[in-house]
C-alpha cells in the first residue's frame, strides 16, 4: 500500500508559501484589471469575480497541494472539496472543473493518479459541475488540485466585506484539520482523524445552499490562513471587530490534546507570525493560540448573518445535515483590533 504522505518532503503542513512573503511579491507586480472585475486578490476574497452582464458573473478559483492523507481516492476528494469551496464561499454555483496534476511517473504507473482523479470526479459529480479538462506535468512530489469556474448573480456575491455590527458568526465545520493531519502521520487519535477526514471530504455545497435562503452580509471559507486569519480578512474588509469565543468553537475530538502534545503544523507558527491584527485574551489557555492559527484544509464557511435570522439559519443547517454548524462569535463596532479571541 502506497503511503502518499511519505512522498512529500516539505510536509503537507508546510507546503504553503507564507502570506507575509507572498504579499511582498504581489505588491511588486502591477495589477491587470478592468471594469468588469468585481473581486480580485486585492480584497483578499476567496475567488475572482468577473461580470459578464447584469445577471451573470463568473466565479473563478484554483487550488492545489501536496497529499494530506495517504489514501489516493481520499486525497482527490479532499482536494476537489477544497477547490470547489471557494465558489460556495462567494455565493456561487460551480459549473466546470479542470484537473491540475504534478505526479511522479512510478506512482502514475501504480494507478495512484487514477484513484486521485476518480476521487475528485466523485466530488465534482456531487457538486453538479462538469470536468472539462486539465493539465499534468511530471513532478518529484505528487501535487493535485482543481481549477473551478462557477457563476453568481453580480448583486448577490458574498464577499469578505459587508459584515455589520451586531451580526452573528456561524462556522459550518469543526476546526483542527492541521493538528489532525499531523496526528494521522503519527497514527494517533484515530477518532479525531476520521472526523477530520470526513469533514475535509464534505462539500460546502450543502451549507451554502441553506444559507442562500438567508441574508448573508459576508462569507469566507476557512482554509490555510486559519480561523483567525480569515476572520481578520473579513473584519478588516468590513471595518468592524470580530469577537471569537474560543470555548464555543467546534473542534474535532482530541484536537486540544493533540495541540498540547505538539502536533502543531509549521504553518501554524507561520500564521501566528504573519497575522498581527488580533488580540488573544490573556486568560485563555495557551493551547488556543495553536487552535485558532491552525491551517485548515477544506474548512467550513464562516457566515455573518443578522441576529434576527441566526437561530433559524442554524436550525436549518442542522436539519440539512450540517450538524457541526455553530455560532462562534459576534461582529462589534471597531475597537482598534480586527479580531479578539475571548473565552
Amino acid at each position, binding site marked *: 500500500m502506497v503511503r502518499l504522505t511519505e512522498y512529500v518532503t516539505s510536509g503537507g503542513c508546510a507546503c504553503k508559501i507564507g502570506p507575509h512573503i507572498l504579499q511582498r511579491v504581489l505588491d511588486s507586480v502591477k495589477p491587470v484589471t478592468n471594469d468588469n472585475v468585481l473581486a480580485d486578490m486585492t480584497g483578499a476574497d476567496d475567488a475572482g469575480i468577473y461580470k459578464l452582464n447584469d445577471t451573470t458573473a463568473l466565479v473563478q478559483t484554483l487550488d492545489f497541494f501536496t497529499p494530506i492523507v495517504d489514501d489516493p481516492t481520499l486525497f482527490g476528494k479532499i482536494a476537489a472539496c477544497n477547490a470547489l469551496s471557494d465558489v460556495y464561499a462567494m455565493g456561487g454555483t460551480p459549473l466546470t472543473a479542470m484537473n491540475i496534476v504534478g505526479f511522479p511517473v512510478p506512482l502514475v504507473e501504480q494507478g495512484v493518479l487514477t484513484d486521485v482523479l476518480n476521487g475528485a470526479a466523485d466530488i465534482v459529480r456531487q457538486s453538479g459541475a462538469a470536468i472539462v479538462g486539465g493539465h499534468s506535468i511530471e513532478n518529484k512530489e505528487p501535487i493535485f488540485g482543481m481549477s473551478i469556474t462557477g457563476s453568481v448573480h453580480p448583486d448577490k456575491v458574498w464577499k469578505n466585506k459587508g459584515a455589520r455590527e451586531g451580526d452573528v458568526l456561524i462556522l459550518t465545520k469543526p476546526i483542527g484539520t492541521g493538528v489532525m493531519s499531523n496526528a494521522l*502521520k503519527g497514527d494517533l487519535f484515530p477518532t479525531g482523524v476520521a472526523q477530520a477526514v470526513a469533514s475535509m471530504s464534505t462539500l460546502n455545497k450543502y451549507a451554502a445552499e441553506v444559507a442562500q435562503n438567508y441574508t448573508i452580509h459576508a462569507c469566507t471559507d476557512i482554509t490555510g490562513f486559519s480561523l483567525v486569519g480569515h476572520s481578520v480578512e473579513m473584519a478588516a474588509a468590513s471595518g468592524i471587530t470580530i469577537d471569537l469565543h474560543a470555548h464555543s468553537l467546534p473542534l474535532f475530538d482530541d484536537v486540544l*490534546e493533540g495541540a498540547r502534545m505538539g502536533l502543531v*503544523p509549521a504553518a501554524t507558527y507561520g500564521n501566528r507570525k504573519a497575522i498581527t491584527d488580533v488580540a488573544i485574551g490573556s486568560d485563555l489557555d495557551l493551547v488556543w493560540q495553536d487552535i485558532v492559527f491552525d491551517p485548515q484544509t477544506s474548512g467550513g464557511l464562516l457566515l455573518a448573518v443578522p441576529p434576527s435570522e441566526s437561530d433559524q439559519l442554524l436550525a436549518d443547517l442542522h436539519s440539512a445535515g450540517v450538524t457541526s454548524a455553530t455560532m462562534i462569535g459576534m461582529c462589534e463596532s471597531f475597537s482598534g*483590533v480586527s479580531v479578539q479571541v475571548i473565552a
Partner: protein
Amino acid sequence: MNSTKGIIVDVRGSLCPKPVIETKQVVDKAPGEVITTIVDNEVSRDNVEKFGVSKGYSVTIAQEGKDFYLTLVPGDMNHNDVTVNIDTLQESAHVGNRVLLMTKDYLGEGSEELGRNLMKTFWTCVVEADVKPKTIYFINSAVKMVVTDSVHLDNLKELAKAGVDIAACGICLDYYGVKDQVDVGTITNLYAITDSLMNEAVVKL
C-alpha cells in the same frame, strides 16, 4: 562538542510532526527515563517542548549552532540529579526573567549621537551578559533597530539565537514604513506588550 544524557532521539533533518512522534515512541517504550531530543528547526523545538511539558517532563533547551538539544526530565526526578554535559552551553545562553522595553533607537537622554554609540555598546554587553533578558520589545523609533541595514542586527540576531524573544510593534513598523524589512525577531502588537508590562519585570530604556 556536546555530550548528552539519557536516551538520544536525533531527528535533525526531520520536519513536523516526526520529531514529536519519534520522541513519543521513546517515551512510551521507556517511561521515567531522561530523553534528549535533537532537532534543527524552531518549529520542531517548540513542538517537542510542548510534547514534553504535556507529558509532565521538565524540559531544558540548549542550542549549538543550528541544533537544539531538548532534555526531557521526568517530573518526579530532581533536576539537580541529572548531570547534562551541555550545562556549560546552557549557562552561556542563560535567559533570565527581565523584559526590556526599548522606546527609541538611542540610549539615554541628552546627545542623540552619543546615545546611538551607547546603544551599540549596550547590545554587545547584553550579548556577553551571563543572564540575558527573556524578551525585548521595540516600540516607536526603536523598531528601526530590527530592520535591514540596522547596525544592531548582528547583536540582536545573536540574542535571538540564545533564546531571547525579540518582538517589534507592528503599528510602529508601519508608521516608519519598514514592516517588510524586519530582519530579526517577530512582529507583535500593543496588546501583547501591555500584557507583559502589567505582569512582568520590565526595564524601560
